[in-house]
């Protein structure tokens, strides 16, 4: 009984904050656009009694989902989001792994400081940090001034409002989510394993591939999902740094909601996005489960 009560609490939380909002969004996605407040029909009218509820359900349909399939903008945006998420996950891994490795091999007394440095950016608002990247990457920005000043380039580089800027922004923002799980996997590793591998005839490099990488696998997978999943729906970074060139589903969603005021289509976009995300989320959970089992 006590166990039941204990489990009930998080489930109630999940119900109130996830399932109910999702059902509302799902309902809107089945509605039609209307010039009204709220800007869709039908709305549930309890005054009409049973007939009202029946009318309400009869007016719901999957039109908006069919519409998403007809307009190439939407599937292109989904594919583009997945591509950007995939590439930036790889980039974040390439940047994050050496950092995590360096942290894990640093002397013990340095580690809390290094950890602090990784978490430190979170102390400032995410939005402000993305804005400051605009200041760095723009044509008159610090980066161009520096490169021009050093004489490395003669004309300023156009980085802002290109996909490159989006990748820079994503890698920068999501780096801690990659570093921390990898670091925690590497830190737990027994240093004598590498010595044993060397003793048995491995070079340093083969020991890294045969021992270090497999043993940090769960950290790598966790980090990749922690980057990949939120980046698919990322909206702020592509809209601030990517300009009009970058097509991402989060941006499309925003435009449908606020520029077109088409709530039903926007909701349909959101529902499809959620369905796409379920796959990596389930895989992520399976990875976590596996790593917990391995520890026992």
């Amino acid at each position, binding site marked *: 009984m006590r166990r039941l009560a204990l489990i009930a609490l998080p489930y109630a939380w999940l119900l109130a904050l996830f399932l109910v909002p999702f059902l509302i969004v799902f309902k809107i996605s089945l509605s039609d656009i209307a010039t009204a407040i709220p800007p869709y029909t039908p709305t549930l009218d309890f005054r009409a009694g049973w007939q009202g509820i029946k009318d309400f359900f009869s007016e719901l349909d999957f039109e908006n989902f069919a519409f998403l399939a007809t307009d190439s903008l939407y599937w292109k945006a989904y594919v583009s989001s997945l591509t950007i998420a995939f590439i930036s996950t790889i980039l974040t891994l390439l940047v994050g792994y050496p950092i995590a490795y360096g942290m894990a091999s640093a002397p013990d007394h340095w580690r809390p400081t290094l950890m602090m440095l990784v978490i430190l950016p979170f102390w400032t608002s995410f939005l402000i940090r993305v804005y400051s990247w605009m200041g760095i990457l723009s044509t008159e920005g610090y980066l161009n001034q520096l490169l021009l000043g050093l004489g490395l380039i003669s004309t300023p580089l156009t980085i802002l409002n290109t996909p490159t800027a989006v990748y820079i922004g994503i890698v920068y923002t999501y780096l801690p989510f990659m570093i921390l799980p990898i670091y925690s996997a590497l830190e737990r590793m027994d240093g004598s394993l590498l010595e044993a591998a060397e*003793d048995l005839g491995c070079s340093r490099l083969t020991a890294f591939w045969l021992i270090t990488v497999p043993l940090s696998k769960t950290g790598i997978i966790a980090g990749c999902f922690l980057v990949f999943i939120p980046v698919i729906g990322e909206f702020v970074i592509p809209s601030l740094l990517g300009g009009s060139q970058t097509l991402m589903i989060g941006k499309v969603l925003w435009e449908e909601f606020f520029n077109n005021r088409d709530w039903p289509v926007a909701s349909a976009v959101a529902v499809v996005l959620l369905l796409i995300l379920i796959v990596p989320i389930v895989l992520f959970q399976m990875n976590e489960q596996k790593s917990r089992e391995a520890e026992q």
Partner: protein
Amino acid sequence: MAQNVFEPWNDPAEKPLIQFKGVTKRFGEFVAIDNQTFDIYEREFFALLGPSGCGKTTMMRMLAGFETPTEGTILLGGQDMAPIPPNKRAINMMFQSYALFPHLSVWENIAFGLRRDNKPKAEIEARVAEMLKLTRLEQFAKRKPHQISGGQRQRVALARCLAKAPKLLLLDEPMGALDAKLRQATQFELMDIQEKTGTTFVIVTHDQEEAMTVASRVAVMDNGRIIQADTPARIYEMPNSVYVADFIGEVTIIPGKVHRRDKGYDVTFAEGQPTLYSEFDAEFDNGQTGYLALRPEKVAISAERPEGRTNAVQGKIIDIAYLGNLSTYHVVLPNGQKIKAQTANTRRLSRRDFTWEDTVWLSWTDTAAVLLKG
């Protein structure tokens, strides 16, 4: 009789497998190994014994190649080891933590070193099978290290470093993680495997009983130096210093002034106490301070003064350590000197002859004690 005894260190024609020549290792200011020169011979089971921090692990890590000597050279079969990295040495090491690869099965762990040498598949399989058989792990080949017991893990670690048939096998506290019963069984198993494979073993341990059981020679270390390296029997019976006598087993040390008499020395250690006599071959000046080292099992305990013994003193029992098969009596003499005497408990405890506060006589033969300089 003597020709069958394994004592290559006494044979000048024998070439040592390992030679330490004036090896010093410093970590910053700290001297871990202090100018050591010694040899280890083929097929030896050589134990480095000492308290933690005495440098025994550093010695082993230098052999494995994880540390380089600050001064001096280490030779393996006459070849200088300094330029050879750990992965190219014909030396394998068994780590204290075993360092088994957790993501690989027992089979893959044992095959790891063989695969690095790009040996043909059939040869690897045959060698791993042989190792599994030697360590009685056949049924566990497919398991991961976390799915087997501590004792089995220890055997996997041993099989893994034996698989490459090294010239020298290093064992760092190999039984540190095992409980007492299993440790004893494993010690004999280890000796058995060493004999079967004919590999030279160097073991690092802080457990003197373990070192005495398995080793052909024991090197007792302190502060980066080998104090004495000899067979277990000689280390125990003929320690060369108070440190060694004290480190190995139980001992009573009686300091006193020595005077030459007949084949040995008289030792006067306190006023009002009888002069002790020890027949021992050593060079002392008359009046020099010597230390009489006396093993408790060589001291007899009796109610009456024993007949015809030079070495007999009277004292009071202040403590009895009951070990089941043995009892150690702590007897204090009137001048405050404590002496330990050990007797086998051949009778039931309730019929014990002596108890606390009893006044007893302790006695030992002329040859029982060892006379040391310090």
